[in-house]
């Protein structure tokens, strides 16, 4: 590790934190968010939902089991430890960087970030930083790793130029360009609308034995129906759901068919918007692997993986054909919606987990089963 590198993280409220640099000697800006999971950084770093975000880890030791080999994969060739083909976050903010130790590890976290041109800052009081974000809300910020220490003047100038990534259509950058077919030799095919889909969703869907076609987020209804899907999944993805105008439009037309639909995370928000509901930006989002979600129908509570900055306004659902099915047991935000008379459901959390608990993976099987009945 090159200890001589300096690093600075500055927030829009004027907070300037200096630490040691790791990863790539470059500078980035983005939305600064925190995540409280203690494990699963390879999955987290490659999760497209973090696109253009600078992620602060509350757990203080990172890199412990290194960077697993990309070649460790399931029978469809989808890597088991990754959620996309590259690091999606803009910058990484941690307390301590550990040397790796694990049989599956190819290299260290430092090398990986360097290769992927992503800067990291270490040695920060990430708990203090998290408390700041929690009380002030998510902020924009910039992160720079360099040989020489960054001057206060440069910091000030850079802070003037911060741009909110959520103003952009982020999904465009992380969706697939062309449809991709994953063949399972099944009679049934699911269409997966890729808003920045995590590999975990793919792994789980394919595990059920169906064929999957992963299509661009701006595919038209006709494009989708051409695959004669038995079910449609709208994936997770980054940013403000309202920026996905085409997808919302498509979803609302799909809701008029009888094809079962599952929306995950951003996908659920898109479903809600398509049905006439509304969304809002959370103060500091949900990014964790320990959030309890209560099934209002059964009373059961599941531990879930979460990664979202936006949420569905509960009262807005009342005017739609949907009803709220799941609530976050901690802050009572909407965690799941269900169509009153169609097979359309949305969950705000990540049933595919990765990283996180497998408690709700059964949803995929359930959904596929429903689709087959079609």
């Amino acid at each position, binding site marked *: 590790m090159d200890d001589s590198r300096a690093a600075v993280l500055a927030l829009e409220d004027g907070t300037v934190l200096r630490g040691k640099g790791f990863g790539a000697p470059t500078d980035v800006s983005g939305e600064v968010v*925190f995540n*409280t*999971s*203690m*494990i*699963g950084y*390879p*999955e987290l770093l490659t999760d497209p939902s973090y696109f253009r975000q600078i992620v602060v880890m*509350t*757990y*203080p*030791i990172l890199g*412990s*089991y290194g960077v*697993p080999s990309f070649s460790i994969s399931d029978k469809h060739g989808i890597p*088991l*430890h990754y959620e996309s083909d590259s690091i999606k976050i803009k910058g990484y903010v941690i*307390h*301590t960087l*550990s*040397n790796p*130790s*694990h*049989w*599956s590890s190819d290299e260290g976290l430092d090398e990986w970030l360097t290769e992927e041109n992503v800067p990291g800052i270490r040695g920060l*009081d*990430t*708990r*203090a930083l*998290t*408390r700041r974000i*929690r009380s002030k809300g998510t902020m924009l910020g910039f992160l720079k790793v360099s040989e020489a220490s960054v001057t206060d003047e440069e910091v000030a100038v850079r802070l003037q130029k911060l741009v909110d990534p959520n103003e952009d259509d982020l999904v465009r950058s992380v969706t697939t360009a062309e449809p991709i077919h994953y063949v399972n030799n099944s009679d049934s095919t699911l269409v997966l609308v890729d808003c920045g889909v995590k590999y975990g969703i793919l792994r789980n869907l394919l595990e059920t034995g169906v064929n999957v076609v992963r299509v661009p987020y701006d595919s038209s209804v006709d494009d989708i129906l051409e695959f004669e899907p038995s079910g449609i999944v709208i994936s997770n993805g980054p940013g403000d759901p309202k920026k996905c105008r085409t997808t919302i439009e498509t979803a609302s037309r799909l809701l008029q068919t009888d094809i079962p639909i599952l929306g995950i995370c951003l996908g659920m928000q898109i479903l809600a918007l398509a049905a006439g509901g509304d969304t809002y930006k959370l103060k500091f989002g949900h990014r*964790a*692997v*320990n*959030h*309890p979600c*209560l099934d209002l129908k059964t*009373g*059961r*509570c599941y*531990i879930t993986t979460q990664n979202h900055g936006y949420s569905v306004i509960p009262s807005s659902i009342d005017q739609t054909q949907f009803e709220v099915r799941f609530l976050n*047991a*901690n*802050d009572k935000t909407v965690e799941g919606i269900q169509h009153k008379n169609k097979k359309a459901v949305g969950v705000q959390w990540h049933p595919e*987990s*990765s*990283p*996180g*608990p*497998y*408690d709700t993976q059964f949803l995929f099987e359930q959904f596929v089963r429903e689709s087959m009945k079609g």
Partner: protein
Amino acid sequence: MKIKGLDKVIIIGSGAIKIGEAGEFDYSTSQAIKALREEGIETIVVNPNIATIHTDKKFADKVYSVPIRKEFVEEILAKERPQGILLGFGGQTALNCGMELAESGILEKYAVQVLGTSINSIEMADNRELFKTTMVANGIPVPKSRKASDLASALEAARQIGYPVIVRVAYTLGGQGSGVAFDDGKLKEIAQRGLAYSRIQQILVEEYLDKWKEVEYEVMRDHDDNCTIVCNMENMDPMGIHTGDSIVVAPSQTLTNREYNILRTTAQRVIRALGIIGECNIQFALDPRSEQFRVIEVNSRLSRSSALASKATGYPIAYIAAKLSIGYALPELANRMTGVTTACFEPSLDYIVVKAPRWDFRKFRRVSNEIGTQMKSVGEVMAIGRCFEEAIQKAIRMLDLRRELTDVDDLGRSWRRIKRELQEPTDQRVFYVVKALKSGFTVDEVSKLSGIDPWFLDKFLNILRGETELKQRGFCKETVGESKILGFSDRKIGRLVRRSEEDVRQFRKTEHIIPCTKQIDTLAAEWPANTNYLYLTYGGTEDDLPFVDQDKVVVLGSGCYRIGSSVEFDWCCVNMGLALRKPRRQVIMVNCNPETVSTDFDVLDKLYFEELTIERILDIIDKEKPKGVVLSVGGQTPNNLAPGLAQHVTILGTSPVSIDTAEDRSKFGLLLDRLGIDQPEWSKLETLEGAAKFADKIGYPVLIRPSYVLSGAAMNVAFDEPQMIQYIREASRISKEYPVVISKFVTGAREVEADGVSDGENVFIGAVIEHVENAGVHSGDATMSIPTITIKEGSRERIMDYARRIAKALVIKGPFNIQFLVKNGEVQVIECNLRASRSMPFVSKMTGTNLMDLAAKAIMGEKIPDGEGKATGFGVKAPQFSFTRLDKADPVTGVEMVSTGEVACFGDNFQDAFITALIASNFYVPRRGDSVLITMGKTRRGIIPYAKMLAENGYRIYSTRHTAEELSEVGIESTILYKVREKKSPNILDYITSGRIKLVINIPSHEEDAESRLVLRDEYVIRRRAAEFGIPVVTNLELAQALVRSLISYNRNAGPLTPAGHEGPPTGSQRSDPSATSHIAKLRSGPSRIPVTALAEG
């Protein structure tokens, strides 16, 4: 929702503290009581562990200080008629008792519902065979194993399983005869030996998970099948070293997300397969080279690990488990840290926790210091940091070994020695790991030899690099700052750069290198938490909370449990803390022991889970600016900080000068001389020649006593000069800065103690306690009685007078304990401790006057009444030993303490209380017709009349030829057994091993000549074998005499006894309904009747 109609619940405790069952159950039971009382449920606790906090009036509604045995519990059920019973909070003891109650139909008879995990589920988790079948049926991998009854089937089993395999022998203790085989040749050898050892000619050939990672999950489940993982923990030491003896980190460090969640999901499947409701601990072995794993074991109850996990995460596992047991579902319960979020979640940590075990092998004679699959540690500490380096260094300091992690220069240097320590671990393991890395072993080499994952070793290297850096770059802001982040103490930094600890501290403060205060909030700051559960770290820049100027008092806890300092001091700390609480005062606890109630963040106003070192206490004081510090209630660890802290902060209570006068044996001797108080002749050690001359003058045996020690560390009786010189060397090593004193060892004297409190003028004596054993047995190992049994009124008055004079002379403001010798009507003072003593919970509960309540007043400058505690009936406190657990340890008592715990029971007379206490300390009380083995040295003929009493009362006496001859001279018939070394049958060892002998009375000989050495060896083998087979061994003459007298008296008496009541108003002798003593009939063949009495009523 709460089960309807539940308004009275009985909770079974864990009894005395022993290796494997310690203070963690005081914590879990106190949490259960809290959870139930909030619901308006009346709680009845059965636990004879008098030193626990949950057996206080402040906690349980009613306490029965009786043995945790079926017969006793049945009587309580009959009397109290509770609707429900909790079995999961008192360790294996409670679980076993519950199983017996269920099997014998007693629970059904009294319509008592088992709350939480059902008897069926307990059985499924506990019974190895049933457990394996259940797991296999559910597709959950367990270690492959097969039974074999001959060589051919053993080889076949190994072929099926695959090498390496471990051979376990059926029905042996301590893993005798077992071994690991990597090939057929070795297996043949081990299997042959094993088959010979086994009583039923059976061995178990099991897959050997050599150096697999050991990982634990703490799992909660409610009756709605909601299931969460509170914490996972990774053992630094791999499979093969008991988790209780391993260094453990939370959360796991070297597991990928997949590994973590594969095990997590399996943990859920396991708890569901077993149908557990509440909490359980699941142990996994994980292959360090693949994702393969095995489920090793499930504890279907609260455990040491669950207490650790509670403290590590801030999630009150026992409290929530109790709520689940009475019918609640997880989502119905709140996370107490935030008050708004739910308890149905999984804590996220933003720090790392390191648990380290403490062994006390040095206390024992002949003991093996190897560690392995059986737990041998007597206590543990938990350290919290923002990196592993910081946390492990803190943990090692918390162990109070007078050694820091990198202090390894004095360890064996040879590569062979280091290699052996890595491969065959002992209590020195962690230091040898550091030593190896420091000596040039590579991380890979150390990892291969020790099985420790390179991740940990890399961190040790970081620490060593920090040390080198500091030495090379010198003392400057950068190096000091880096060193602090890596967890180095000021003292260690000072030693490395040749500066005093104080210099380093001053430098740090000038350079603003100070630790910051962080909260433990279960949610990694995601939610605002109003938590007062804190730690300090250099891995941060900002305090989590502001420090308000107000009336604050800091109470220092007792630190790591060890022999001589256990739950009794936690009782003192918690009671002191509670007594100090006032509307506008904040009481702050500092402690580092996860097995305590004092580290329950709910108990006092603020908790620092921190080191009890001068440096750390001063860090806390700099931030909190309290009115003062109480260090007189946590035993010797905080008391020893008095001199160092006194310069910086107000010590509340007795002045440090007085503490020094009492602790410094030489100053104390002079004080007694000045007061004209009699004491054994003494002399301060100046030179070895002087010592020899003095010893010659007063005559051997002499007692060698170092200053500032607890539990008789390095205290020894020397019978001749060479022995004396050896002991002096040991004592000087233990107490380097303070004097060693030599005094006359008075033989044949009674030992008496007075526990009291003084405000400087008025003196309140809680009780005068007499030991059953003569002086020479450490007070922690002595059986003691309130009131005294042989002390005459004149001596008693003198004792009271001496105590008052000493208290006034030292201007004691707080608790004190004075020890006396009484011989021929003469009273001598031998020791005075200006702090809470081990016996204070006993005295307080016996008399109903809580000495800590008085001490809190005295410490804060208020007046206390002059007087004396009043007791009705008799209370006897008996020690609990854990010799069985400690390979080769000689089960004898002496001036150094060796017991791990204690119980106290009550009765109308001494015999009642005494026998009940013995039963409660897991001592098998022999019945009429039982066989008793008596062996004695030349000087111990005092036992002969008692042997006669036994014989006349229907006990069968066995002895060796020599003893038999002496017995026959007085007309006692005994069966002669061959001595161990005679190797002929009928041999003593056969009789012990087969369980025919029910009691061994062996009064050890003193070392005199060559012949007696052989005798000594023989006696040791007898005692040791008896201990291994759970046969009680009495090695003290007076104890043997008391036992025999009590047995005879029980056998003679037949009428019902009146039970005595204790604690409560002075008049409150709650006489229980005589009909309630119905179990007595069932015990008639043994001790006749045991009163069952509630301790605290109302």
